């Protein structure tokens, strides 16, 4: 048995799963002290099922806490940044285009040191260890406890970054060290930015992971727990303590993966309809299609693996206005739905009221909305379906009809076929798809490197990279026979003769529950 938890900004959801079956599910408000909400949600699913804490083999948690903290500049620590790249890249020092408000929180402590590799992993400059040690000492004297390291072409060759970590820990044993090669791809500035963001979350990650740990201990659950990352795969709790940034944007991924799981369909469109917005994404082989655009988070550019999501201003709390043309959203009553919506005795007409009036949903009191004219209801229903259909059309990549899976609390708004889709599916437990997505997250492995196809041949290069990615996944806890290739991307390097190709392979497999060790 395993438990999936989703700690969102508004709600904390928990599900108890036995194999493919959802045994119990619970939605509770997120609490200021995160662990209280988790305890409440998990207690409820255990009570509902009559199972004991002992029966739980593993807990998977999805959380938006870290993204929110960075965007809101809350609970961040001062960071020291050391780039190992000189003489290259001196023209763009670290944090060149960071917003001032974030620099004022995490400081502008950076150093650039000689070292780094070339695009094919050959040495570019010898690592200046002496200079590096001196830089670390300067940070030490300023009392810095979080350091981000970025090395030239470190995703291709990470040796210098590894050595850098050793040196830092010798000087400052309790330092939180972030290595850029562990979090990002080729693209020095974006990778370095992600490393700095990660380092700034060092204190918060320890605190949050500790509160997760405490919540489980309070419940008597001794099973290990994992946290889901933005590509739909899992990280061990200890790893999240070090690399919290990898949880960024895991929310939409979890809900899409949950949708695939609940419906049993691996290639489909997914619309996650919440209180204020609808996120539409595309599932391919059970995983979300990734965005190709660079992503700004809190004003900082990154090259994270983010799902390609189209967000619409439509949700269960969307306000309906009838002056002039009828409009639905984008304004929403948000978390005040249970006070402001007419079915709950409020005086604001929302899309939820329309769904109740049209007979799609049974929420609140229908008598409160008996005065609504038929034409108004019909027009609003039409409008809501039209908004979703329009969003679907933008996300579709081919004329082929694909199924549409609806999840999230607002899924009740949709009750008709949507043009361009094969059929509309609202699976059971659609409201807690996030937590289910977390509970079924897989263990992944990724390789991103430049290969010379002329020397090794395309087939050999791909099979080598594949084998390496698989061993990364297995080492992280995936059951070897379940590991599958999720994505292969080949980009030939322009102007480089010799068939140099940047090859990125991503694999993922089921977590091997048999090998999961309980912390007794």
């Amino acid at each position: 048995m395993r438990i999936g938890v989703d700690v969102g900004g508004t709600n904390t959801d928990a599900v108890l799963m036995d194999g493919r079956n959802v045994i119990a599910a619970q939605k509770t408000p997120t609490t200021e002290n995160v662990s209280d909400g988790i305890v409440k949600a998990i207690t409820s699913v255990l009570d509902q099922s009559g199972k004991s804490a002992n029966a739980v083999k593993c807990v998977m948690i999805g959380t938006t806490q870290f993204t929110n903290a960075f965007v809101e500049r809350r609970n961040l620590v001062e960071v020291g940044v050391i780039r190992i790249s000189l003489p290259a890249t001196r023209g763009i020092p670290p944090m060149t285009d960071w917003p001032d408000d974030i620099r004022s929180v995490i400081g502008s402590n950076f150093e650039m040191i000689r070292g780094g590799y070339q695009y094919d992993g050959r040495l570019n400059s010898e690592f200046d260890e002496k200079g590096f040690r001196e830089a670390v000492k300067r940070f030490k004297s300023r009392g810095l406890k979080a350091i981000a390291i970025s090395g030239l072409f470190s995703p291709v060759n990470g040796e210098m970054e590894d050595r850098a970590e050793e040196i830092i820990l010798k000087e400052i044993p309790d330092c939180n060290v972030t290595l850029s090669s562990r979090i990002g791809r080729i693209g020095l500035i974006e990778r370095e930015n992600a490393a700095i963001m990660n380092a700034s979350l060092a204190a918060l990650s320890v605190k949050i992971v500790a509160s997760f740990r405490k919540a489980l201990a309070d419940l008597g659950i001794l099973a290990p727990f994992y946290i889901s990352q933005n590509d739909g795969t899992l990280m061990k709790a200890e790893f999240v303590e070090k690399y919290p940034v990898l949880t960024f944007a895991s929310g939409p991924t979890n809900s899409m993966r949950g949708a695939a799981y609940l419906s049993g369909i691996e290639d489909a469109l997914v619309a996650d309809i919440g209180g204020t917005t609808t996120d539409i994404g595309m599932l391919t082989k059970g995983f979300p299609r990734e965005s190709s655009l660079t992503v700004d988070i809190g004003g900082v550019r990154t090259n994270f693996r983010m799902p390609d999501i189209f967000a619409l201003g439509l949700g269960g709390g969307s306000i309906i206005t009838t002056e002039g043309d009828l409009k639905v959203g984008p304004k929403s009553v948000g978390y005040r739905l249970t006070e402001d919506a007419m079915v709950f005795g409020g005086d604001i007409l929302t899309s939820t009221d329309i769904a109740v009036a049209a007979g799609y949903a049974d929420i609140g009191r229908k008598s409160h909305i008996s005065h609504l004219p038929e034409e108004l209801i019909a027009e609003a229903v039409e409008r809501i379906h039209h908004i979703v259909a329009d969003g679907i059309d933008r996300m579709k990549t081919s004329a082929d009809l694909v199924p549409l899976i609806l999840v999230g609390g607002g899924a009740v708004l949709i009750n008709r076929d949507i043009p361009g889709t094969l059929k509309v599916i609202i699976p059971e437990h659609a409201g807690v798809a996030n937590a289910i997505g977390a509970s079924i997250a897989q263990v992944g492995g990724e390789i991103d490197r430049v290969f010379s196809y002329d020397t090794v041949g395309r087939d050999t290069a791909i099979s080598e990279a594949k084998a390496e990615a698989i061993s990364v996944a297995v080492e992280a806890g995936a059951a070897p026979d379940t590991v599958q290739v999720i994505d292969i991307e080949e980009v030939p390097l322009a102007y480089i003769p010799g068939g140099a190709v940047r090859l990125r392979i991503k694999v993922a497999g089921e977590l091997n529950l048999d090998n999961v060790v309980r912390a007794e």
Partner: protein
Amino acid sequence: MKLELTDLEDFARGAAFLGTGGGGDPYIGKLLAQHAIREFGVPTIIEPEDLADDALVFAIAMLGAPTVLVEKAACGDDIDLAIDKLSERLGRRPDALIPIEIGGVNSTVPLVASARTGIPLVNADGMGRAFPEIQMVTFNVYGSKPTPLSVVDEHLNSAIIDAKDAKTAEDLVRSVAIQMGLSVITANYPVSGDVVKKYAIKHTLTIALEIGRAISQGRKEGCPVEALVNYLRSTKYYKHCKILYDGKITDIKRETTKGFSVGFCRLEPLSGSGDSMEVVFQNENLAAKINGKMVTMVPDLICIVDRETAEPVPVEALRYGQRVKIIGASVPPIMRTPEALDIFGPQAFGLDGPYTPIEDIVMP
């Protein structure tokens, strides 16, 4: 004209548009310029008309692979040295610098050079867009050679290249760049003020900035693509301009031959049925075809932009499923003469000719 720190975002976006899919990540170029301007102040930009006939002008550019560039940007000293080395060879410092191309990263590298050295920058360039090779410059078309030229890497290794013609110079500089790690700085095309006045594509720094501003303004008003097209129509060079297509990418193929990324992307309408579009690219977008019929071809501009934000999409960022609009635009007459087309017309890229200007093609 003047370019302030706060203009860089718009300028880089405009340059990315004129890069027609190539020219290297303008984001890196923007950061380089941002840092250089903070450190050394804003560069002096002069109008081509104000150059003395006998002034000495150098083109300055970064050369390498876009994929390497995103990891390994210039260090700064390499830019200074490239100018020093070529000056040494010629026995004279340049009176002004000029961008070799206005597309992509090479629109901002000269800003960095000018800010660092204090040598003024000419508001003009040698391509009016981006091209992949060093011979594809109007100065070469009309009789000036790119050589002698200097090549410098970040370790401050340097080479001077003399060549019998521009294509040979391209081959040689490319080999040196590969040895130097594929992200190098070159000072080239030492030409006179007179040549710049006759053959450069003038005021393109201003146009790049205005393109970026039109997109920004359009975003505020909710119609960035229309704002962009309207602005282009008001310019002297790019005025024959149309939205060639609106759709999503359904297929992409890339191959590397002789070191160049060659490929095509196919698009279908959002609705799923209707005319299909194919864009052929080799570092830059070269040809746009609707149902197999050529509707725009190099040297005219073919730009792929995000259909909602008008953000230019570089060739290496093209992905299956992207929703884009394709914009075609004319280039100045000086780039459409028979001698210009010999160097950068369709046949120079191995495409079927003959070249037909965008305004003479009837859309299917």
